[in-house]
């Protein structure tokens, strides 16, 4: 853990060799083609994966499928990422909080001289055509005050992360789109990197920055790993580092090594395999864990309910 992004950019950064990237793509393509035979996908009707879905399929397939049936609160297209981990609030508040923190981080990145407040983040979101947050807060009325105060505290902590004031030579860009197409288009993995620094053609090593609105937990690292892999496949050059900035004040820095890229590729391979079996009609496996606490199908899931009971007994 380090204090701020500036420490990362000032320190030595070494991107891993590009030697193994083509082999990773080839391996993933072979796996995706094999899975396509089982899953029945095509270029016209592909499997569309996002970082959220990859994590979901590996964590608990049943929950991953059930979440796809939920109304998408931010109106993203398929394959786009939803931000904001679950907190102990309703899903609407959770997504809204994620959006506000996310927008504040991006505004700080592109407009470093502007003080970033909740109002500024809301105006930025609205200017980009996303009125979901403003609408949600308006619907809440006076009850929105607590949410806004919470967001302000998180944004204040975020302001100390060093996102504002990054040297322009790092080419700070927000929501950088990345998409990996496998098996001739039958399998796609898409996402938007919160903030991307360096990388081709800047002559500086690439640094992926992911912004999270909740509390730090180790599972957040996987998103950075997947994006590092996707950027490597897109650019033919792996980033040097993945930085996760969390609104609880945590900044996690992870140097990207070939083994991490390999691990991310193996996770993606496994997720595609799980998806293929689900698409072929196999019932989704239920894998209980801490995620059960916020699962939308919890009331109907004996496995999940059982896990919570055991966990509660352990605590007592």
């Amino acid at each position, binding site marked *: 853990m380090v204090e701020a992004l500036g420490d990362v950019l000032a320190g030595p950064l070494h991107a891993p060799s590009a030697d193994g990237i083509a082999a990773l793509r080839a391996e993933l393509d072979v796996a995706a083609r094999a899975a396509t035979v089982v899953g029945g996908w095509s270029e016209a009707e592909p*499997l569309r994966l996002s970082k959220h879905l990859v994590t979901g399929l590996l964590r608990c397939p049943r929950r991953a499928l059930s979440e796809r*049936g939920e109304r998408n609160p931010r109106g993203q297209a398929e394959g786009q990422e939803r931000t904001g981990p679950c907190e102990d609030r309703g899903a609407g508040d959770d997504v809204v909080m994620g959006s506000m923190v996310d927008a504040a981080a991006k505004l700080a990145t*592109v*407009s470093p001289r502007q003080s970033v407040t909740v109002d500024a983040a809301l105006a930025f979101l*609205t200017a*980009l*055509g996303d009125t979901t947050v403003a609408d949600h807060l308006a619907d809440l009325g006076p009850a929105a005050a607590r949410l806004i105060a919470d967001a302000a505290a998180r944004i204040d902590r975020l302001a100390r992360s060093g996102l504002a004031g990054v040297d322009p030579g790092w080419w700070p860009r*927000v929501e*950088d789109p990345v998409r990996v197409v496998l098996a001739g288009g039958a399998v796609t993995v898409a996402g938007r990197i919160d903030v991307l620094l360096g990388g081709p053609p800047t002559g500086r090593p690439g640094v992926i920055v992911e912004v999270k609105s909740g509390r730090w937990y180790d599972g957040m690292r996987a998103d950075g790993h997947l994006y590092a892999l996707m950027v490597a496949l897109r650019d033919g050059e792996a980033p040097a580092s993945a930085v996760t900035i969390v609104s609880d004040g945590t900044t996690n820095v992870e140097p990207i090594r070939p083994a991490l890229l390999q691990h991310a590729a193996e996770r993606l391979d496994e997720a595609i395999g799980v998806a293929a079996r689900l698409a072929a009609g196999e019932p989704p496996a239920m894998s209980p864990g801490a995620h059960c606490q916020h699962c939308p199908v919890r009331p109907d899931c004996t496995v999940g309910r059982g896990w919570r009971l055991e966990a509660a007994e352990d605590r007592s």
Partner: protein
Amino acid sequence: MTVDDPVGTADRLRAAVAEQIAGALAGAGVPVGDIYVGWGAALEAATCAARYRGRGELGWAFPGWSPPLAGGACGRAALAHHMAQADLAGRPATLPTPLDAIRTWMRALRTAGDASAGGAPPPERSSVGDWICETWEAGDFATLAAVAATAGRWLAGFVRVLGWPLPAQLTLLNAPGPAAVAAPSWRPDKASPVTVACGADARLGRVTRAGGFVLVVHRVTTADDGAIRDRAAFEAAAGALGIGVVPASVLVSGGDTGERVTAPVDHDLLALGADRIAAVVSQRAIATERGFEPADSTPSTSCRHCDHLAECPPGQAWMRLAERWRGGLPVN
């Protein structure tokens, strides 16, 4: 079959498309207002004719500038300004830093004509430049920041995928200033309500009667832009109509995928593009009598966000299926 007579082929294409357009307009129940045929309209008319017809006058018209819509225009303008400044100083352009290039262009817009501003060359006026000035004067800094985000994304992706220095003989299209030229556009005749606009971002090579030049189309994201061949076909035909010479190929790049795909222009590609152009005018003409009609719909993922879903049984049927199957996976 490749095109061996770029000028003659473009002439014949103009005649053929003009005839198709005239035929479509003649079938309209009432005179048709201005029709702007760009790739967005062509894609929508081809993917769901009913939805395109249902947009109405406001939907067919230019919706006005907004940060998402202005990303490409501002990114090109900022890059063109950056290159023009270097040219004026008699030095090769350095690698632009996206946010700096955009801010420099915006400041130059604001100080254009201001003698106290010093040596910065005033960017030539443009619709998007005027909008930026108005936004600045209104003190709407959230919108300016949002433009910096979207334009920076365009500029960064364009330079990353095409490489720096930019390819030799690259000329930016559809951007103001001396380092760029206007995008090709074409009207069948002076009185026609139809304008066909080529959406290429750049051109590689000079336009000569021998053809040989390449149109460059940069897509920030590729998932919702249709097939590469369709996009290349439209831009090849629109470019040939506007320039009067058929391009040798269309280079389609993807910011999200990093891909660069070259589509050689042949007669089949031009015919496909011409059909896409004619289809827009045809649907617009039909819309004078029949707006949205479910029987003409083509359900797809677009149904999720379609304003006509409530009155579209095919779309609703598709959505019922989509509720059980989404993005290649069943929904439980």
